[in-house]
């Protein structure tokens, strides 16, 4: 397996930002006559040229379906596709690449878990525990499961600072708790959760643990063995890869024991009308033609990330996040939502007297792309008594000037809404 070495010095490699930015064609443009300031990486990141070239290479040079093909193009495509499994395993420090299942994204990965082992493990009277700051993708599948099975959804509360309140964890996790599903980093307010502690408590009570790592994989090193979780999901398109790529990592022995989810080609060993036998993991969970191009593109994205190093990316983004918090705090009328102990990816804020939607429209006119809305985290919005916030989120290509442009544009909003 093709493991990457990981340096222990965070920030050891410092980032050549101009070079990094030059790799992203979409950043080189003007919006309404202003240079694009892309602060929406938590929704989806921009893609470096190498990712586009990897996909293009597949389509131009060896476009074909994979597995069970014996001609040269198919052989090449299969080898490339399977090699990305090794890259993902290396990224997550997973010992066995067979524990990597390709999905269309985080959402599908979580649904897969809920619909297979979730159904088997959660019965009437049981509990599933999530947190108050989950993305809808890590709420709705569990809600649907609980409703179907007559189980109860319980929620780890969130403090005014935007941290999960873990003091009462022992009360929240009991023998009834069959699954604990937690987001690693909040996409709405940027909190980095102490999931190791939550996982530890869950395991002690015999609950399965599912980590929604959609917002952590792009920003920090992850080691599934060290975390101790049973499943972990992320989306390729949020880590500089293509739309349509995603990953469910699961403990091999769990995956092997699980029933398949979707039926179709590739996930079977033999089919007859009387009896069908299923393929081994991971193919058992990859029914039908996968998004071959997207997986190959994800491989290139992980190469890109590894070349810079997640420690360097984390350090760079932390600096920007700290700077943004400090500068936004200087803007009168701006209220940052949440002051978590540790932050990654995003900052959410509101502006007195102006609806986030209006802020978003005016910012866009200045070339500043942010999200305004509930960020698929309605319960968290409600927790803070809001219907929407403005969210600025960062990536490896973000720069200090982006923060300044954001602040300037907010000033403009204030002029209009004075």
């Amino acid at each position: 397996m093709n493991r990457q070495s990981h340096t222990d010095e965070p920030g050891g490699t410092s980032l050549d930002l101009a070079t990094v930015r030059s790799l992203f064609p979409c950043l080189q443009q003007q919006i309404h006559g202003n240079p694009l300031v892309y602060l929406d990486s938590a929704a989806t990141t921009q893609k470096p040229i190498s990712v586009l070239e990897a996909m293009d290479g597949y389509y131009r040079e060896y476009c074909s379906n994979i597995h069970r093909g014996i001609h040269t193009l198919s052989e090449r495509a299969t080898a490339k596709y399977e090699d990305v499994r090794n890259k993902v395993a290396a990224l997550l420090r997973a010992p066995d690449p067979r524990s990597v299942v390709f999905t269309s994204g985080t959402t599908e990965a979580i649904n897969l878990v809920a619909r297979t082992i979730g159904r088997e493990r959660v019965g009437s009277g049981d509990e599933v525990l999530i947190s108050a700051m989950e993305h809808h993708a890590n709420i709705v599948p569990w809600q649907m499961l609980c409703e179907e099975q007559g189980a109860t959804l319980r929620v780890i509360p969130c403090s005014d600072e935007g941290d999960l309140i873990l003091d009462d964890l022992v009360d929240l996790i009991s023998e009834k708790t069959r699954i604990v599903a937690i987001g690693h980093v909040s996409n709405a307010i940027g909190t980095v959760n102490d999931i190791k502690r939550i996982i530890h408590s869950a395991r002690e009570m015999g609950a399965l643990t599912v980590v929604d790592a959609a917002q952590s994989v792009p920003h920090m090193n992850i080691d599934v063995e060290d975390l101790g979780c049973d499943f972990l999901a992320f989306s390729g398109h949020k880590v500089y890869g293509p739309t349509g790529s995603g990953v469910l990592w699961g403990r091999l022995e769990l995956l092997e024991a699980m029933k398949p989810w979707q039926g179709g080609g590739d996930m079977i060993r033999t089919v007859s009308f009387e009896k069908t036998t299923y393929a081994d993991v991971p193919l058992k969970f990859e029914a039908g033609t996968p998004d071959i191009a997207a997986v190959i593109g994800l491989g290139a994205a992980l190469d890109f990330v590894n070349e810079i190093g997640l420690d360097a990316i984390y350090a760079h983004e932390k600096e920007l996040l700290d700077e943004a918090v400090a500068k936004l705090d200087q803007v009168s009328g701006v209220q940052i939502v949440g002051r978590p102990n540790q932050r990654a990816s995003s900052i959410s804020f509101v502006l007195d007297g102006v609806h986030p939607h209006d802020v978003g429209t005016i910012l866009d006119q200045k070339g500043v792309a942010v999200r305004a809305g509930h960020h698929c985290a309605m319960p968290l919005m409600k927790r803070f008594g809001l219907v929407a916030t403005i969210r600025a989120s960062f990536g490896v290509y973000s720069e200090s000037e982006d923060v300044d442009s954001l602040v300037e544009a907010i000033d403009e909003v204030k002029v209009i809404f004075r």
Partner: protein
Amino acid sequence: MNDFRDLYQEMILDHYRSPRNFGPLESQNLSARGYNPLCGDEVELHLYRDGDGILRDISFEGCGCAISTASASILSEVLKGRPENEVRGIFEEFHKMITEEGTAPEGEGLAKLKVFSGVKNFPVRVKCATLVWHTLIQALNEKEEEVCTE
């Protein structure tokens, strides 16, 4: 370039800051709710339609962004006292104005609606401007479900 000053005209900002006809309506005999998932905004529209089909009174609650709030506020001002049929026609013209190259609804007392003509250049905001209008039609049709501008 679309100037956002065309969108955020003074009249819109004024109605946003001080919405007219805001609150419940004691005499209400028709009402409906509308929801815009894009901004998370909700509006509740209260109407009193008399026996001749005239909208004698209009008020609203909820809303959120400047465009949807101002739209509700101005609607309530402009349509009060008009017959139902005329109101439906005005919505059609209003809708044309903010989606295609239509002109503003003509007629006495309708000039204010023109302030929304800038919305045309901001396609994602069209739903904000029309939310209250769709809710109005829902109320007039005496439909129960919440309107949603998905």
